[in-house]
């Protein structure tokens, strides 16, 4: 057996110097925690947590055919995405299965900026390159003018929490004018930064794409604020689960569709009407009610945490499905989980049981998110 050679982010030395416990994650040597998952989780909910997410893939698609390329792969209406806005998008397989989930920003009038999951990035970038090369995937004329660039020289930080804006106001005040899911190009420490007002914790916050060679300076600058602490992947997972956000490889993979994963919002009505979506027949059938399972949120009433793989049972002990993520919620003090059950058992308030170490424990289907989000949304006019 050969030992896995782990890749590093530009901040690896800093994580180690801060005393982080490092673990292999998606092929990278990543910090799972610094002072402890509970403390880091609570700090992010109360102040501002700084996450190194440089392992994620970043890319840019520009040119006349950029929209056609992205729409050939996702069920998103990218033509309707305004400059300065961001969308959550799903990369679909030909049969409608989910191959990855992306954050796609449109920081300027032309061109799209993608952030993709670390474990999926090689696959995703190959699929995009193939789509551009393959004239059969769309009208050749539309796809001729497309530039696709993988941004290997950029790192990515996420600053998350109710006080993230107070920290950002000192460094890049203009970025604080953005609302949730806005994005833009800003000057930060003399460099060009692509910043979005989003994240994956349910909190207000920013994701900052920054030149890899200078990201250490930005990391140090952000951590110099008493409001900011470094946060590892452990708390990132418990935060996103409390926020009800599905994670690729857990709630989603090629075996699930967006209907089953309860991610219908990632498919625009205009695209559904046009019908030019991968796996459209399967998606339409499921929307029409031919659905065997659906993603739900589950709260354990009393008992141990139910982790990924735990069986979800009905009141009689019959197996309904399986837990895809589970964690003792640091904010709520009870255990929470997401998983899949038949639609008949998905109503809020339905009593179920979760099996942990062979014993069933009472639980119920609840609404998402588990913890209310703190997004800085644009006031409705």
């Amino acid at each position: 057996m050969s030992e896995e050679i782990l890749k590093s982010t530009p901040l690896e030395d800093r994580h180690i110097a801060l005393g982080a416990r490092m673990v292999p994650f998606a092929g990278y040597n990543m910090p799972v925690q610094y002072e402890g998952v509970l403390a880091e989780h609570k700090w992010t909910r109360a102040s501002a947590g700084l996450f190194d997410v440089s392992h994620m893939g970043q890319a840019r698609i520009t040119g006349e055919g950029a929209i056609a390329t992205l729409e050939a792969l996702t069920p998103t209406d990218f033509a309707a995405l305004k400059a300065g806005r961001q969308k959550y998008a799903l990369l679909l397989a030909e049969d409608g299965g989910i191959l990855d989930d992306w954050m796609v920003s449109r920081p300027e009038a032309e061109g799209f900026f993608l952030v993709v999951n670390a474990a999926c990035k090689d696959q995703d970038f190959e699929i995009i390159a193939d789509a551009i090369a393959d004239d059969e995937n769309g009208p050749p004329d539309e796809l001729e003018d497309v530039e696709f660039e993988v941004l290997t020289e950029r790192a990515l930080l996420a600053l998350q929490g109710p006080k993230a804006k107070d920290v950002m106001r000192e460094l890049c005040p203009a970025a604080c004018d953005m609302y949730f899911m806005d994005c833009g190009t800003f000057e930060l420490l003399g460099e060009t930064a692509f910043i979005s007002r989003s994240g994956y914790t349910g909190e207000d916050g920013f994701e900052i794409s920054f030149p890899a060679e200078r990201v250490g300076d930005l990391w140090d600058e952000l951590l110099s604020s008493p409001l900011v602490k470094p946060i590892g992947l452990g708390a990132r997972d418990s935060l996103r689960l409390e926020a009800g956000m599905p994670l690729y490889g857990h709630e989603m993979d090629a075996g699930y569709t967006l209907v089953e994963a309860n991610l219908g919002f990632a498919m625009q009505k205009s695209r559904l009407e046009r019908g030019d979506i991968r796996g459209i027949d399967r998606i339409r059938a499921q929307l029409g009610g031919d659905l065997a399972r659906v993603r739900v949120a589950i709260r354990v009433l009393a008992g141990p945490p139910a982790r990924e793989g735990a069986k979800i049972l009905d009141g009689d002990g019959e197996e309904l499905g399986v837990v895809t993520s589970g964690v003792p919620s640091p904010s709520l003090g009870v255990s929470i989980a997401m998983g899949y059950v038949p639609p008949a058992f998905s109503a809020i308030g339905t009593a179920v049981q979760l099996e942990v170490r062979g014993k069933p424990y009472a639980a119920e289907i609840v609404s998402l998110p588990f913890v209310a989000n703190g997004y800085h949304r644009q006031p409705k006019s």
Partner: protein
Amino acid sequence: MKFTKDHEWVRVEGAEAFVGISLYAANALGDVVFVELPEMGKTVKQGDAFAVVESVKAASDVYAPVSGEVVAVNDDLPNAPETINAVPEAGGWIAKIKLSDLSELDGLMDQVAYDAYLDTL
């Protein structure tokens, strides 16, 4: 106090022994948020998984460091699992076992040997 390679500790008092997880194990596990205690009166064999401690991230089995009958459990732990992080080798004890085979103790490490063992990890 004696230790196992799986990072449990044993403190013998007469024919009975308090058992728990070592400071090293508590630190490695991180914040303990749930403890599943063994049942009172249960007979355990050395090496049996007899309790579970869970952090936010993961569940970990605790293996019985000695064979015998569980004669007491630390009832405070379910309500205050963080005690295991705070004082793992004292107030964070998990159970008290009535020893059925005293010779098993000879196979465990003393503090010096355990510290040396930790250096090899």
